[in-house]
């Protein structure tokens, strides 16, 4: 009883106190819709994302919820420290995000869950210097373009075992978010040319469905396939609808091997045809592999991932690779789980390099 109240309080505080879920920012999202979020709990993310499709606390594959038999709530906090190296200058950036919150439990034979996660993050601020011919003379100025916001994915999902070796999952997704876009132009000669400041609020909404199938041919082997179909973003500028953007579907699969009582190995591949969203976007193929070693009380995890990013300068997709490691610890008579980890990502493309260190902190409360 006490645990249920604690969970309700936890969920209430999280829902009331956090901003819309957002993942880490990236300079590679500036020229597109943003940077896609990771629908992974800390446990999954510290294995490079390889276990995300089998993790009930992650929001990647709905069928994985059948592995959670009690009411469980998870929150991820992710402070990141980013160094950006461009031919035009370097910068050290930092931000703290809450990229994932999930709740799952059972109602009868059904596993039911939901939560919110980051679909796209679109926060950045860049400064450029330029000049232009104004009234017959060259006038220099500094532009400051900033975007603050993102799109959250609110999910409601159900899953059910169909026999001892198969489980199916189905999810409904509502994407909603906004970004406050600010453009400021300051002229060098402020006495003659007034500063331009323009702020607009861009709102985006969309819907999607997801489905997944978890096959367990043997106690040591699990295979999952997942797919997601997203419709389109309806975009409003301030209060006026200005158009739509097609969103990509997603296809993926993962395999998990149980090597023994205390060791598990997983790998996954995900494909998203982002090029449908417009010019300058690229299809992405991402893979990951990870290992989890430990008991049900304490676990050590590590993993790696690689693939492409959907947006960036140039004619080819930016590349991304990363490694992660972490550990999990159960406490409070198995009602509480704390997962911590660290992730290093390297993104490169068209002369731009970005190195991101992210500290991952996950809080899970179970009934």
């Amino acid at each position, binding site marked *: 009883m006490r645990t249920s109240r604690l969970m309700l309080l936890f969920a209430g505080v999280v829902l009331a106190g956090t901003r819309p879920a957002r993942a880490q920012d990236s300079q590679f999202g500036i020229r597109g819709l943003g940077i896609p979020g990771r629908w992974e709990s800390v446990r999954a993310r510290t294995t490079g994302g390889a276990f995300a499709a089998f993790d009930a606390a992650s929001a990647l594959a709905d069928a994985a919820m059948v592995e959670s038999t009690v009411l469980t709530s998870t929150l991820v906090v992710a402070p990141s420290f980013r160094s950006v190296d461009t031919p035009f200058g370097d*910068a050290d950036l930092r*931000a703290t995000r809450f990229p994932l919150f999930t709740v799952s439990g059972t109602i009868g034979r059904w596993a039911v869950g939901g939560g919110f996660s980051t679909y796209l993050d679109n926060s950045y601020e860049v400064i450029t210097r330029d000049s232009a011919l104004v009234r017959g003379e060259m006038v220099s100025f500094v532009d400051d373009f900033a975007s603050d916001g993102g799109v959250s994915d609110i999910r409601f999902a159900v899953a059910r075992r169909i026999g001892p070796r198969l489980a199916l999952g189905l999810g409904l997704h509502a994407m909603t978010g906004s970004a406050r876009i600010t453009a400021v132009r300051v002229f060098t000669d402020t006495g003659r040319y007034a500063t331009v400041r323009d702020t607009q609020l861009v709102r985006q909404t969309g819907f999607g469905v997801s489905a997944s199938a978890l096959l367990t041919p043997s106690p040591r082997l699990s295979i999952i396939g997942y797919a997601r179909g997203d419709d389109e973003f309806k975009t409003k500028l301030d209060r006026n609808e200005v158009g739509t953007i097609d969103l990509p579907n997603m296809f993926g699969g993962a395999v998990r091997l149980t090597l023994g009582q205390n060791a598990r190995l997983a790998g996954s591949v995900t494909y998203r045809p982002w090029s449908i969203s417009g010019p300058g976007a690229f299809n992405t193929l991402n893979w990951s592999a990870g290992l989890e070693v430990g008991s049900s009380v304490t676990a050590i995890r590590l993993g790696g991932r690689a693939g492409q990013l959907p947006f960036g300068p140039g004619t080819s997709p930016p590349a991304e690779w990363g490694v992660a490691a972490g550990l999990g*610890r159960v406490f409070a008579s198995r009602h509480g789980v*704390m997962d911590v980890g660290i992730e290093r990502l390297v993104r490169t493309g068209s002369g731009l390099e970005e190195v991101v260190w992210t500290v991952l902190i996950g809080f899970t409360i179970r009934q």
Partner: protein
Amino acid sequence: MTRQARGGALCAALGLAVLLTACTEKLLAPGHCPEVCSTFALTMTDTILPLAIYEDSSFGRPVGYISPHNATGLVAKSVPGRESRPIFRTIPIPSRIVVNGDTATGPVVGVDSLRLTLTITARDTAAHNLTLSLYAMPLTIDSTTAFHDLDGPFGAAPVRTVNLDTLLARPGLKDPVTGDSALVDNSTRRIILLLALDSAQAPLVTADSGKLAFGIRISADSRASATLGAQESNAFGPVVTWFLKVDSLGAKTIKATRLAQPAFDGFVFDPPALPIGSALVVGGVPSARTMLRMALPRAIRDSSRVIRATIEFEAAAQLEGTAADSFRVVAHPVIADFGAKSPLSNARTDTTWIAVVPLDTVRIDVTRVLAYWTTNTQATTMMLRQLPEGAVFAELRLHSSVVFAQRPKLHLTYAPRYPVSP
């Protein structure tokens, strides 16, 4: 504490430390277009709107917004084609003055001496042998007094004459013979003249209650021009200091000092101001203002950012005076459009320096005024006025919209709304 609990506490402390370290967001990074910058850029549009000013008129003649009697400066000028002479009349002084620090008063029985303080707020430094001549004026002078009404008093011998260049060249800026002295404020370039007068030059006439009236003529080798502070200019007006002899209740004669500030000051000038006619006039004496009613396209007013805005006028006449007569033109938005008497807003004004040089096209900056209009629904009417107002003979005479080919135009550089597309 169990080992498990210690581990949990350690993890919590670690997480809290990281959160505190990274809780402030820093996203600012250098960019470069088009590689690392937004796909949408601010654009600038430069356009000339010949019909933006749909009504224009000038007001201020024959009665100006500021006339010589309420101007902040008293113009002394003697150049070909322009003669201007400051005049002023002091307030009366009391016939009895408190003596011995109590309530008892004694009669004023004579004058020891006087000191006239004049402040030169502006002058043409290229003029040599700048000389001020002080003339006695009738006490009847007031704001209706015209230039030729004072031909007689100015035709008489001057009460005093002081050569400014000679005085400023003396050690300590003092003339030991006449008792005149000067103080120079190098930061403001003001010169305070302290002219010593005796009771013969400025007699105490009991019937006039000690009122005095003076007129000043200026002369120089060439370009004789200066502006004296008026009483409207915050304590820079002419002041007469009386050093009086007072009967101390029959015991002895004591000395007392009384200041006599002007009851009236102004200046008379010739030739008189031209009527406004069909032109637009800004400035001059008495001062005129020009009102412009403007219609901005909705796309600009509602959703654009003004970068620079100037109104381009074609000059209808050249400016009077020399470089020393250069002035500023201030554009004020009106708070409400009541025509010539519209209250002006001082919050968002633009100032343009007008040099006295041959004019062709006159560009008046109105950037802040137009930017102000794009943020509210106030009347899009502005007023142009001169600074200093009513104390400069140079006036802008500009073609109005009466002649279509020469009508004023709005030259506008603006940024259309930041084009965010889906």
